[in-house]
Protein backbone atom coordinates (compact mmCIF):
# COMPACT_ATOMS: atom_id res chain seq x y z
CA UNK A 1 0.00 0.00 0.00
CA UNK A 2 1.51 3.31 -0.97
CA UNK A 3 1.40 6.24 1.38
CA UNK A 4 -0.22 9.19 -0.38
CA UNK A 5 1.52 12.51 -0.03
CA UNK A 6 -1.44 14.25 1.54
CA UNK A 7 -0.94 12.20 4.71
CA UNK A 8 0.69 14.22 7.45
CA UNK A 9 4.06 12.85 8.46
CA UNK A 10 3.41 10.91 11.67
CA UNK A 11 6.64 11.86 13.40
CA UNK A 12 6.59 15.55 12.63
CA UNK A 13 3.22 16.38 14.10
CA UNK A 14 3.87 16.69 17.78
CA UNK A 15 7.59 16.13 18.25
CA UNK A 16 8.48 19.77 18.37
CA UNK A 17 7.76 21.30 21.78
CA UNK A 18 7.37 24.70 20.12
CA UNK A 19 4.51 23.41 18.08
CA UNK A 20 1.44 23.67 20.25
CA UNK A 21 -0.97 23.44 17.35
CA UNK A 22 -1.25 19.69 17.82
CA UNK A 23 -3.77 19.81 20.64
CA UNK A 24 -5.10 16.42 19.70
CA UNK A 25 -4.10 13.65 22.08
CA UNK A 26 -1.60 11.10 20.87
CA UNK A 27 -3.95 8.19 21.25
CA UNK A 28 -6.57 9.79 19.02
CA UNK A 29 -3.95 10.69 16.47
CA UNK A 30 -2.66 7.14 16.27
CA UNK A 31 -6.22 5.88 16.03
CA UNK A 32 -7.07 8.29 13.21
CA UNK A 33 -3.94 7.29 11.36
CA UNK A 34 -4.90 3.64 11.61
CA UNK A 35 -8.44 4.36 10.37
CA UNK A 36 -7.03 6.36 7.51
CA UNK A 37 -4.70 3.57 6.47
CA UNK A 38 -7.50 1.03 6.76
CA UNK A 39 -9.77 3.12 4.56
CA UNK A 40 -7.08 3.43 1.93
CA UNK A 41 -7.54 -0.24 1.12
CA UNK A 42 -10.80 -0.96 -0.66
CA UNK A 43 -10.48 -4.68 0.07
CA UNK A 44 -10.32 -4.01 3.81
CA UNK A 45 -13.39 -1.81 3.57
CA UNK A 46 -15.18 -4.49 1.57
CA UNK A 47 -14.27 -7.02 4.27
CA UNK A 48 -15.56 -4.71 6.97
CA UNK A 49 -18.83 -4.19 5.08
CA UNK A 50 -19.25 -7.95 4.61
CA UNK A 51 -18.57 -8.64 8.28
CA UNK A 52 -21.03 -5.93 9.32
CA UNK A 53 -23.64 -7.42 6.99
CA UNK A 54 -23.06 -10.89 8.45
CA UNK A 55 -23.28 -9.55 12.01
CA UNK A 56 -26.46 -7.65 11.14
CA UNK A 57 -28.09 -10.80 9.78
CA UNK A 58 -26.84 -12.75 12.80
CA UNK A 59 -28.61 -10.36 15.14
CA UNK A 60 -31.79 -9.60 13.19
CA UNK A 61 -31.90 -12.56 10.77
CA UNK A 62 -34.65 -14.51 12.49
CA UNK A 63 -36.82 -11.42 12.83
CA UNK A 64 -36.40 -10.32 9.22
CA UNK A 65 -36.79 -13.74 7.63
CA UNK A 66 -39.72 -13.86 5.19
CA UNK A 67 -41.01 -17.20 6.53
CA UNK A 68 -40.35 -17.20 10.29
CA UNK A 69 -42.57 -20.24 10.79
CA UNK A 70 -40.13 -22.38 8.76
CA UNK A 71 -37.29 -21.50 11.13
CA UNK A 72 -39.17 -23.02 14.02
CA UNK A 73 -39.58 -26.26 12.03
CA UNK A 74 -42.81 -25.62 10.15
CA UNK A 75 -43.16 -27.44 6.83
CA UNK A 76 -45.06 -26.65 3.63
CA UNK A 77 -45.08 -29.92 1.70
CA UNK A 78 -47.12 -28.40 -1.12
CA UNK A 79 -44.17 -26.27 -2.14
CA UNK A 80 -41.32 -28.81 -2.08
CA UNK A 81 -38.20 -28.09 -4.13
CA UNK A 82 -39.39 -24.85 -5.65
CA UNK A 83 -36.58 -23.29 -7.70
CA UNK A 84 -35.50 -19.73 -6.81
CA UNK A 85 -38.32 -17.27 -7.51
CA UNK A 86 -39.49 -13.90 -6.25
CA UNK A 87 -41.40 -15.46 -3.37
CA UNK A 88 -38.48 -17.78 -2.50
CA UNK A 89 -35.26 -16.10 -3.72
CA UNK A 90 -33.17 -19.10 -2.59
CA UNK A 91 -35.87 -21.68 -3.44
CA UNK A 92 -37.39 -24.20 -1.05
CA UNK A 93 -36.03 -27.47 0.32
CA UNK A 94 -37.35 -31.02 0.61
CA UNK A 95 -39.83 -29.98 3.32
CA UNK A 96 -41.00 -26.93 1.42
CA UNK A 97 -39.15 -24.58 3.79
CA UNK A 98 -37.83 -21.28 2.49
CA UNK A 99 -34.04 -21.66 2.14
CA UNK A 100 -33.46 -17.91 2.50
CA UNK A 101 -35.18 -17.93 5.91
CA UNK A 102 -33.15 -20.93 7.03
CA UNK A 103 -29.87 -19.41 5.87
CA UNK A 104 -30.66 -16.12 7.62
CA UNK A 105 -31.53 -17.90 10.85
CA UNK A 106 -28.48 -20.15 10.56
CA UNK A 107 -26.20 -17.12 10.50
CA UNK A 108 -26.75 -16.58 14.21
CA UNK A 109 -25.63 -20.07 15.22
CA UNK A 110 -22.61 -20.11 12.91
CA UNK A 111 -21.35 -16.63 13.73
CA UNK A 112 -22.01 -16.98 17.45
CA UNK A 113 -20.17 -20.30 17.51
CA UNK A 114 -17.28 -18.86 15.47
CA UNK A 115 -16.90 -15.89 17.81
CA UNK A 116 -17.22 -18.07 20.89
CA UNK A 117 -14.58 -20.53 19.71
CA UNK A 118 -12.09 -17.81 18.86
CA UNK A 119 -12.69 -15.95 22.12
CA UNK A 120 -12.22 -19.02 24.28
CA UNK A 121 -9.18 -20.12 22.28
CA UNK A 122 -7.67 -16.63 22.51
CA UNK A 123 -8.05 -16.38 26.27
CA UNK A 124 -6.79 -19.91 26.87
CA UNK A 125 -3.95 -19.64 24.36
CA UNK A 126 -2.83 -16.20 25.52
CA UNK A 127 -2.67 -17.25 29.16
CA UNK A 128 -0.81 -20.48 28.38
CA UNK A 129 1.54 -18.88 25.86
CA UNK A 130 2.30 -15.89 28.07
CA UNK A 131 3.04 -18.07 31.09
CA UNK A 132 5.24 -20.39 29.02
CA UNK A 133 7.16 -17.60 27.32
CA UNK A 134 7.52 -15.36 30.34
CA UNK A 135 8.43 -17.82 33.07
CA UNK A 136 10.31 -20.27 30.84
CA UNK A 137 12.07 -23.29 32.26
CA UNK A 138 10.23 -26.54 32.88
CA UNK A 139 6.85 -24.78 32.82
CA UNK A 140 7.56 -23.69 29.26
CA UNK A 141 8.63 -27.20 28.30
CA UNK A 142 5.53 -28.84 29.78
CA UNK A 143 3.05 -26.35 28.33
CA UNK A 144 4.62 -26.32 24.89
CA UNK A 145 4.86 -30.12 24.69
CA UNK A 146 1.17 -30.30 25.58
CA UNK A 147 0.38 -27.85 22.82
CA UNK A 148 2.59 -29.76 20.37
CA UNK A 149 0.71 -32.91 21.30
CA UNK A 150 -2.54 -31.09 20.73
CA UNK A 151 -1.36 -29.94 17.31
CA UNK A 152 -0.60 -33.49 16.20
CA UNK A 153 -4.25 -34.44 16.54
CA UNK A 154 -6.35 -33.27 13.57
CA UNK A 155 -8.63 -30.54 14.89
CA UNK A 156 -11.83 -31.84 13.37
CA UNK A 157 -11.32 -35.40 14.62
CA UNK A 158 -10.48 -34.11 18.10
CA UNK A 159 -13.55 -31.86 18.10
CA UNK A 160 -15.71 -34.78 16.94
CA UNK A 161 -14.44 -36.95 19.78
CA UNK A 162 -14.94 -34.25 22.41
CA UNK A 163 -18.35 -33.25 21.02
CA UNK A 164 -19.44 -36.90 20.98
CA UNK A 165 -18.32 -37.29 24.59
CA UNK A 166 -20.02 -34.09 25.75
CA UNK A 167 -23.19 -34.66 23.76
CA UNK A 168 -24.79 -32.55 21.06
CA UNK A 169 -25.56 -28.88 21.42
CA UNK A 170 -24.14 -25.52 20.45
CA UNK A 171 -22.30 -24.88 23.70
CA UNK A 172 -20.65 -28.29 23.81
CA UNK A 173 -19.60 -27.93 20.21
CA UNK A 174 -17.98 -24.55 20.92
CA UNK A 175 -16.08 -26.07 23.86
CA UNK A 176 -15.03 -29.05 21.78
CA UNK A 177 -13.61 -26.95 18.97
CA UNK A 178 -11.88 -24.39 21.22
CA UNK A 179 -10.10 -27.18 23.11
CA UNK A 180 -8.31 -27.97 19.89
CA UNK A 181 -7.89 -24.36 18.84
CA UNK A 182 -5.79 -22.75 21.57
CA UNK A 183 -2.31 -24.12 20.66
CA UNK A 184 -2.10 -21.78 17.66
CA UNK A 185 -2.65 -18.79 19.92
CA UNK A 186 -0.35 -20.18 22.60
CA UNK A 187 2.52 -20.53 20.13
CA UNK A 188 1.96 -17.08 18.67
CA UNK A 189 1.82 -15.43 22.10
CA UNK A 190 4.80 -17.37 23.44
CA UNK A 191 6.98 -16.31 20.52
CA UNK A 192 5.97 -12.68 20.87
CA UNK A 193 6.52 -12.74 24.64
CA UNK A 194 9.98 -14.27 24.18
CA UNK A 195 10.91 -11.50 21.77
CA UNK A 196 9.53 -8.69 23.95
CA UNK A 197 11.14 -10.07 27.09
CA UNK A 198 14.56 -9.03 25.79
CA UNK A 199 13.53 -5.48 24.89
CA UNK A 200 15.33 -2.69 26.71
CA UNK A 201 12.13 -1.22 28.12
CA UNK A 202 11.40 -4.55 29.80
CA UNK A 203 14.92 -4.62 31.29
CA UNK A 204 14.28 -1.04 32.37
CA UNK A 205 11.11 -2.17 34.14
CA UNK A 206 13.10 -4.82 36.02
CA UNK A 207 15.66 -2.20 36.96
CA UNK A 208 12.88 0.00 38.32
CA UNK A 209 11.97 -2.87 40.63
CA UNK A 210 8.63 -3.74 39.04
CA UNK A 211 7.05 -7.05 39.99
CA UNK A 212 7.27 -9.74 37.26
CA UNK A 213 3.48 -9.86 36.95
CA UNK A 214 3.38 -6.13 36.44
CA UNK A 215 6.03 -6.46 33.75
CA UNK A 216 4.01 -9.17 32.01
CA UNK A 217 0.70 -7.32 32.11
CA UNK A 218 1.83 -3.74 31.75
CA UNK A 219 4.86 -3.99 29.49
CA UNK A 220 4.74 -7.20 27.50
CA UNK A 221 1.11 -8.08 26.83
CA UNK A 222 0.01 -4.63 25.59
CA UNK A 223 2.81 -4.78 23.05
CA UNK A 224 1.77 -8.11 21.58
CA UNK A 225 -1.97 -7.46 21.35
CA UNK A 226 -1.91 -6.53 17.65
CA UNK A 227 -0.88 -9.90 16.18
CA UNK A 228 -3.39 -11.58 18.50
CA UNK A 229 -6.25 -9.42 17.23
CA UNK A 230 -5.20 -10.10 13.66
CA UNK A 231 -5.10 -13.83 14.23
CA UNK A 232 -8.51 -13.66 15.91
CA UNK A 233 -10.19 -12.06 12.94
CA UNK A 234 -8.47 -14.43 10.51
CA UNK A 235 -9.45 -17.43 12.64
CA UNK A 236 -13.14 -16.57 12.96
CA UNK A 237 -13.64 -17.54 9.33
CA UNK A 238 -12.00 -20.92 9.87
CA UNK A 239 -13.94 -21.43 13.10
CA UNK A 240 -17.20 -20.88 11.22
CA UNK A 241 -16.03 -23.41 8.67
CA UNK A 242 -15.20 -25.92 11.42
CA UNK A 243 -18.63 -25.46 12.98
CA UNK A 244 -20.19 -26.11 9.59
CA UNK A 245 -17.98 -29.19 9.12
CA UNK A 246 -19.16 -30.62 12.43
CA UNK A 247 -22.74 -29.88 11.43
CA UNK A 248 -22.09 -31.56 8.09
CA UNK A 249 -20.92 -34.80 9.69
CA UNK A 250 -23.90 -34.70 12.01
CA UNK A 251 -22.29 -33.70 15.29
CA UNK A 252 -23.19 -30.30 16.55
CA UNK A 253 -26.44 -28.43 16.28
CA UNK A 254 -29.40 -30.74 15.75
CA UNK A 255 -32.22 -29.94 13.35
CA UNK A 256 -34.63 -28.20 13.35
CA UNK A 257 -32.27 -25.44 14.59
CA UNK A 258 -30.97 -24.20 11.25
CA UNK A 259 -27.21 -24.14 10.84
CA UNK A 260 -25.23 -23.77 7.61
CA UNK A 261 -23.33 -27.04 7.87
CA UNK A 262 -26.44 -29.04 8.72
CA UNK A 263 -28.38 -27.44 5.86
CA UNK A 264 -25.58 -28.34 3.48
CA UNK A 265 -25.40 -31.87 4.81
CA UNK A 266 -29.12 -32.56 4.32
CA UNK A 267 -29.13 -31.03 0.84
CA UNK A 268 -26.25 -33.01 -0.53
CA UNK A 269 -28.50 -35.97 -1.39
CA UNK A 270 -30.59 -33.68 -3.63
CA UNK A 271 -27.67 -32.51 -5.72
CA UNK A 272 -27.45 -31.65 -8.55
CA UNK A 273 -31.13 -31.51 -9.49
CA UNK A 274 -32.16 -29.25 -6.63
CA UNK A 275 -28.88 -27.37 -6.49
CA UNK A 276 -30.27 -24.32 -4.73
CA UNK A 277 -30.78 -26.20 -1.47
CA UNK A 278 -27.00 -26.69 -1.14
CA UNK A 279 -25.54 -23.77 -3.05
CA UNK A 280 -27.11 -20.98 -1.01
CA UNK A 281 -26.01 -22.18 2.45
CA UNK A 282 -22.58 -22.73 0.92
CA UNK A 283 -22.50 -19.23 -0.52
CA UNK A 284 -23.49 -17.80 2.85
CA UNK A 285 -20.53 -19.58 4.41
CA UNK A 286 -18.26 -18.36 1.64
CA UNK A 287 -19.49 -14.80 2.15
CA UNK A 288 -18.90 -14.81 5.91
CA UNK A 289 -15.48 -16.47 5.79
CA UNK A 290 -14.31 -14.29 2.93
CA UNK A 291 -15.44 -11.18 4.81
CA UNK A 292 -13.67 -12.11 8.03
CA UNK A 293 -10.48 -12.95 6.11
CA UNK A 294 -10.48 -9.66 4.24
CA UNK A 295 -11.06 -7.83 7.51
CA UNK A 296 -8.24 -9.78 9.15
CA UNK A 297 -5.85 -8.94 6.33
CA UNK A 298 -6.82 -5.30 6.56
CA UNK A 299 -6.34 -5.23 10.32
CA UNK A 300 -2.97 -6.87 9.96
CA UNK A 301 -1.85 -4.20 7.53
CA UNK A 302 -2.86 -1.52 10.00
CA UNK A 303 -1.88 -3.08 13.32
CA UNK A 304 1.11 -5.18 12.39
CA UNK A 305 3.08 -3.23 9.81
CA UNK A 306 5.98 -5.68 9.83
CA UNK A 307 3.81 -8.36 8.25
CA UNK A 308 2.76 -6.19 5.31
CA UNK A 309 3.58 -7.58 1.96
Amino acid sequence: MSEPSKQVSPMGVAADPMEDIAVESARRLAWRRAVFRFRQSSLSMLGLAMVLAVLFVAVFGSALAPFPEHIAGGVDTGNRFMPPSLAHPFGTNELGQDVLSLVMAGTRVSVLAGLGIVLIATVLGTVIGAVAGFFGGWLDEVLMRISDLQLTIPGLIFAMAVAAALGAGLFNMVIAISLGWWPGFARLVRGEVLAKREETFVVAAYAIGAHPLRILFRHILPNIISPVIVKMSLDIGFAILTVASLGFVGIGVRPPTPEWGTLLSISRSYMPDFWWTAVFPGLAMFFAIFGFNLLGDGLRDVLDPRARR
Partner: protein
Amino acid sequence: MLEVEQVSKIFPGRKGLFGSSPEVQALKGVSLRIAKGESFGLVGESGSGKTTLTRSILRLDVPTSGRIMFEGEDLATLTPAALRHLRSKIQIVFQDPFASLNPRMSVHDIVTEPMLVHRAELGLSARQRSDRAAELLSLVGLGEQHLHRYPHEFSGGQRQRICVARALAPKPSLVLLDEPTSALDVSVQAQVLNLLIDLQDRLGLTYLFISHDLGVVRYLCDRVALILRGEIVEEGATQAVFEHPQSAYAKMLISAMPQVAFS
Protein backbone atom coordinates in the same frame (compact mmCIF):
# COMPACT_ATOMS: atom_id res chain seq x y z
CA MET B 1 28.45 3.89 48.60
CA LEU B 2 29.01 1.24 45.95
CA GLU B 3 31.74 -1.33 46.39
CA VAL B 4 32.51 -3.87 43.75
CA GLU B 5 34.89 -6.48 45.13
CA GLN B 6 36.72 -8.94 42.94
CA VAL B 7 33.73 -9.53 40.70
CA SER B 8 34.11 -12.12 37.96
CA LYS B 9 31.52 -13.20 35.49
CA ILE B 10 31.87 -16.22 33.26
CA PHE B 11 29.27 -16.95 30.63
CA PRO B 12 29.33 -20.72 30.19
CA GLY B 13 30.13 -22.10 26.78
CA ARG B 14 27.63 -24.20 24.94
CA LYS B 15 28.11 -27.67 23.62
CA GLY B 16 25.38 -28.76 21.30
CA LEU B 17 24.58 -30.84 18.30
CA PHE B 18 25.12 -27.91 16.00
CA GLY B 19 28.51 -26.72 17.16
CA SER B 20 29.72 -25.37 20.45
CA SER B 21 30.91 -22.05 21.73
CA PRO B 22 33.70 -21.55 24.26
CA GLU B 23 32.99 -19.96 27.62
CA VAL B 24 33.46 -16.24 27.86
CA GLN B 25 35.03 -14.53 30.81
CA ALA B 26 33.39 -11.12 30.71
CA LEU B 27 34.76 -9.82 34.00
CA LYS B 28 37.99 -10.84 35.72
CA GLY B 29 38.26 -9.78 39.34
CA VAL B 30 36.93 -6.27 38.91
CA SER B 31 37.08 -4.04 41.99
CA LEU B 32 35.70 -0.53 42.19
CA ARG B 33 34.69 1.88 44.91
CA ILE B 34 32.39 4.73 44.22
CA ALA B 35 31.98 7.39 46.87
CA LYS B 36 28.80 9.32 47.49
CA GLY B 37 28.35 12.36 45.28
CA GLU B 38 31.07 11.62 42.80
CA SER B 39 30.96 10.91 39.11
CA PHE B 40 32.84 7.78 38.33
CA GLY B 41 33.72 7.15 34.70
CA LEU B 42 34.16 3.66 33.35
CA VAL B 43 35.80 3.60 29.96
CA GLY B 44 36.27 0.64 27.72
CA GLU B 45 35.85 -0.53 24.19
CA SER B 46 33.03 -2.73 22.93
CA GLY B 47 33.10 -6.16 24.56
CA SER B 48 35.27 -5.06 27.45
CA GLY B 49 32.67 -5.95 30.06
CA LYS B 50 31.16 -2.54 30.75
CA THR B 51 27.61 -3.65 30.20
CA THR B 52 28.07 -6.89 32.14
CA LEU B 53 29.30 -4.84 35.07
CA THR B 54 26.23 -2.57 34.96
CA ARG B 55 23.94 -5.57 34.69
CA SER B 56 25.70 -7.11 37.68
CA ILE B 57 25.30 -3.94 39.74
CA LEU B 58 21.59 -3.93 38.89
CA ARG B 59 21.63 -7.64 39.61
CA LEU B 60 20.09 -8.41 36.26
CA ASP B 61 23.08 -10.75 35.94
CA VAL B 62 24.50 -12.69 38.86
CA PRO B 63 28.31 -12.53 39.15
CA THR B 64 30.15 -15.86 39.12
CA SER B 65 32.27 -14.76 42.05
CA GLY B 66 32.93 -11.66 44.10
CA ARG B 67 30.63 -9.30 45.96
CA ILE B 68 28.76 -6.14 45.15
CA MET B 69 27.89 -4.02 48.16
CA PHE B 70 25.52 -1.07 48.00
CA GLU B 71 25.30 1.13 51.08
CA GLY B 72 26.77 -1.69 53.12
CA GLU B 73 24.37 -4.38 51.89
CA ASP B 74 25.51 -7.34 49.86
CA LEU B 75 23.19 -7.60 46.86
CA ALA B 76 23.55 -11.38 46.79
CA THR B 77 21.99 -11.82 50.24
CA LEU B 78 18.79 -9.92 49.50
CA THR B 79 15.42 -11.61 49.02
CA PRO B 80 13.62 -10.83 45.74
CA ALA B 81 11.29 -8.42 47.56
CA ALA B 82 14.18 -6.66 49.31
CA LEU B 83 15.99 -6.43 46.01
CA ARG B 84 12.99 -4.81 44.32
CA HIS B 85 12.87 -2.39 47.24
CA LEU B 86 16.57 -1.59 46.85
CA ARG B 87 16.14 -0.96 43.16
CA SER B 88 14.53 2.37 43.87
CA LYS B 89 17.98 3.49 45.05
CA ILE B 90 19.90 2.44 41.95
CA GLN B 91 18.53 3.62 38.65
CA ILE B 92 19.80 3.36 35.11
CA VAL B 93 19.65 5.32 31.88
CA PHE B 94 20.23 3.12 28.88
CA GLN B 95 22.14 3.83 25.73
CA ASP B 96 19.27 3.51 23.25
CA PRO B 97 16.48 5.98 23.99
CA PHE B 98 14.38 4.48 21.21
CA ALA B 99 14.20 1.03 22.78
CA SER B 100 14.07 1.85 26.45
CA LEU B 101 10.58 3.36 26.59
CA ASN B 102 7.47 1.22 26.36
CA PRO B 103 5.72 2.39 23.17
CA ARG B 104 2.29 1.68 24.63
CA MET B 105 2.68 3.86 27.70
CA SER B 106 2.22 7.61 27.86
CA VAL B 107 5.03 9.74 29.26
CA HIS B 108 2.94 10.22 32.39
CA ASP B 109 2.64 6.47 32.92
CA ILE B 110 6.34 5.93 32.19
CA VAL B 111 7.52 8.55 34.64
CA THR B 112 5.04 7.67 37.40
CA GLU B 113 5.64 3.93 37.16
CA PRO B 114 8.70 3.85 39.47
CA MET B 115 6.74 5.91 42.00
CA LEU B 116 3.83 3.53 41.71
CA VAL B 117 6.07 0.52 42.17
CA HIS B 118 7.77 2.07 45.20
CA ARG B 119 4.69 3.84 46.55
CA ALA B 120 5.14 2.13 49.91
CA GLU B 121 8.52 3.80 50.49
CA LEU B 122 7.76 7.10 48.80
CA GLY B 123 4.27 7.49 50.23
CA LEU B 124 2.83 9.43 47.31
CA SER B 125 -0.83 9.48 46.33
CA ALA B 126 -1.87 9.21 42.69
CA ARG B 127 -2.30 12.96 42.54
CA GLN B 128 1.11 13.61 44.09
CA ARG B 129 2.71 11.19 41.65
CA SER B 130 1.24 13.07 38.70
CA ASP B 131 2.41 16.36 40.14
CA ARG B 132 5.89 14.97 40.68
CA ALA B 133 5.94 13.64 37.12
CA ALA B 134 5.23 17.13 35.83
CA GLU B 135 7.93 18.47 38.14
CA LEU B 136 10.45 15.90 36.90
CA LEU B 137 9.65 16.72 33.30
CA SER B 138 10.35 20.39 33.85
CA LEU B 139 13.51 19.40 35.71
CA VAL B 140 14.80 17.63 32.60
CA GLY B 141 13.74 20.43 30.31
CA LEU B 142 10.41 19.14 29.06
CA GLY B 143 7.00 20.47 29.96
CA GLU B 144 3.69 19.45 31.42
CA GLN B 145 2.19 19.47 27.93
CA HIS B 146 4.28 16.39 27.12
CA LEU B 147 2.75 14.27 29.88
CA HIS B 148 0.07 12.67 27.79
CA ARG B 149 2.08 12.06 24.67
CA TYR B 150 3.63 8.77 23.62
CA PRO B 151 7.34 7.99 23.15
CA HIS B 152 7.18 7.79 19.36
CA GLU B 153 6.31 11.47 19.23
CA PHE B 154 9.65 12.53 20.67
CA SER B 155 13.14 12.96 19.27
CA GLY B 156 16.08 10.94 20.59
CA GLY B 157 17.28 13.72 22.89
CA GLN B 158 13.79 14.26 24.28
CA ARG B 159 13.36 10.56 24.87
CA GLN B 160 16.63 10.42 26.74
CA ARG B 161 15.34 13.25 28.91
CA ILE B 162 12.24 11.17 29.61
CA CYS B 163 14.52 8.27 30.57
CA VAL B 164 16.39 10.56 32.95
CA ALA B 165 13.09 11.74 34.45
CA ARG B 166 12.02 8.13 34.94
CA ALA B 167 15.35 7.29 36.56
CA LEU B 168 15.03 10.20 38.98
CA ALA B 169 11.40 9.44 39.87
CA PRO B 170 12.04 7.03 42.79
CA LYS B 171 14.63 9.41 44.31
CA PRO B 172 17.69 7.24 43.68
CA SER B 173 21.08 7.91 45.18
CA LEU B 174 23.07 6.15 42.45
CA VAL B 175 22.37 6.52 38.74
CA LEU B 176 24.08 4.27 36.22
CA LEU B 177 24.51 6.00 32.90
CA ASP B 178 25.18 3.38 30.26
CA GLU B 179 26.50 5.43 27.36
CA PRO B 180 23.54 7.78 27.67
CA THR B 181 24.67 10.05 24.87
CA SER B 182 26.28 7.78 22.34
CA ALA B 183 23.06 7.32 20.36
CA LEU B 184 22.46 11.05 20.11
CA ASP B 185 23.57 13.81 17.77
CA VAL B 186 26.63 15.71 18.91
CA SER B 187 24.72 18.91 19.64
CA VAL B 188 22.09 17.02 21.62
CA GLN B 189 24.83 15.11 23.45
CA ALA B 190 26.14 18.33 24.92
CA GLN B 191 22.65 19.34 26.07
CA VAL B 192 22.03 16.01 27.77
CA LEU B 193 25.49 16.04 29.41
CA ASN B 194 24.93 19.53 30.76
CA LEU B 195 21.54 18.44 32.03
CA LEU B 196 23.18 15.51 33.85
CA ILE B 197 25.82 17.74 35.45
CA ASP B 198 23.16 20.24 36.48
CA LEU B 199 20.99 17.51 38.02
CA GLN B 200 23.92 16.10 39.95
CA ASP B 201 24.63 19.50 41.45
CA ARG B 202 21.03 20.04 42.40
CA LEU B 203 20.12 16.60 43.69
CA GLY B 204 23.45 15.36 45.03
CA LEU B 205 23.43 12.25 42.86
CA THR B 206 26.21 9.74 42.45
CA TYR B 207 26.94 8.75 38.86
CA LEU B 208 28.54 5.71 37.37
CA PHE B 209 29.11 6.91 33.86
CA ILE B 210 29.92 4.29 31.29
CA SER B 211 31.30 5.38 28.00
CA HIS B 212 33.80 4.77 25.28
CA ASP B 213 34.11 8.47 24.67
CA LEU B 214 37.13 9.81 26.55
CA GLY B 215 36.24 13.41 25.87
CA VAL B 216 32.85 13.02 27.51
CA VAL B 217 34.33 11.22 30.49
CA ARG B 218 36.96 13.89 31.00
CA TYR B 219 34.27 16.54 30.87
CA LEU B 220 31.93 14.87 33.36
CA CYS B 221 33.82 12.61 35.74
CA ASP B 222 35.81 13.08 38.93
CA ARG B 223 37.43 9.69 38.82
CA VAL B 224 37.85 7.26 36.01
CA ALA B 225 38.70 3.60 35.47
CA LEU B 226 39.73 1.96 32.24
CA ILE B 227 38.50 -1.54 31.58
CA LEU B 228 40.10 -3.84 29.02
CA ARG B 229 38.88 -7.38 28.35
CA GLY B 230 37.18 -7.63 31.70
CA GLU B 231 40.04 -6.22 33.77
CA ILE B 232 40.52 -2.78 35.26
CA VAL B 233 43.84 -1.61 33.83
CA GLU B 234 43.95 1.86 35.28
CA GLU B 235 42.07 3.83 37.87
CA GLY B 236 42.47 7.25 39.39
CA ALA B 237 41.41 10.87 39.47
CA THR B 238 40.39 11.99 36.00
CA GLN B 239 43.02 14.67 35.71
CA ALA B 240 45.80 12.39 36.88
CA VAL B 241 44.83 9.63 34.50
CA PHE B 242 44.58 11.98 31.54
CA GLU B 243 47.79 13.83 32.29
CA HIS B 244 49.97 11.00 33.56
CA PRO B 245 48.60 7.70 32.30
CA GLN B 246 50.38 4.72 33.83
CA SER B 247 49.38 1.67 31.82
CA ALA B 248 50.23 1.14 28.18
CA TYR B 249 46.54 0.91 27.28
CA ALA B 250 45.74 4.23 28.90
CA LYS B 251 48.71 5.88 27.17
CA MET B 252 47.57 4.54 23.85
CA LEU B 253 43.97 5.65 24.32
CA ILE B 254 44.84 9.11 25.51
CA SER B 255 47.40 9.75 22.82
CA ALA B 256 44.77 8.74 20.27
CA MET B 257 42.28 11.29 21.60
CA PRO B 258 41.44 14.03 19.14
CA GLN B 259 42.66 17.33 20.55
CA VAL B 260 39.44 19.21 21.10
CA ALA B 261 39.40 21.51 24.06
CA PHE B 262 36.21 21.13 26.08
CA SER B 263 36.86 23.69 28.77
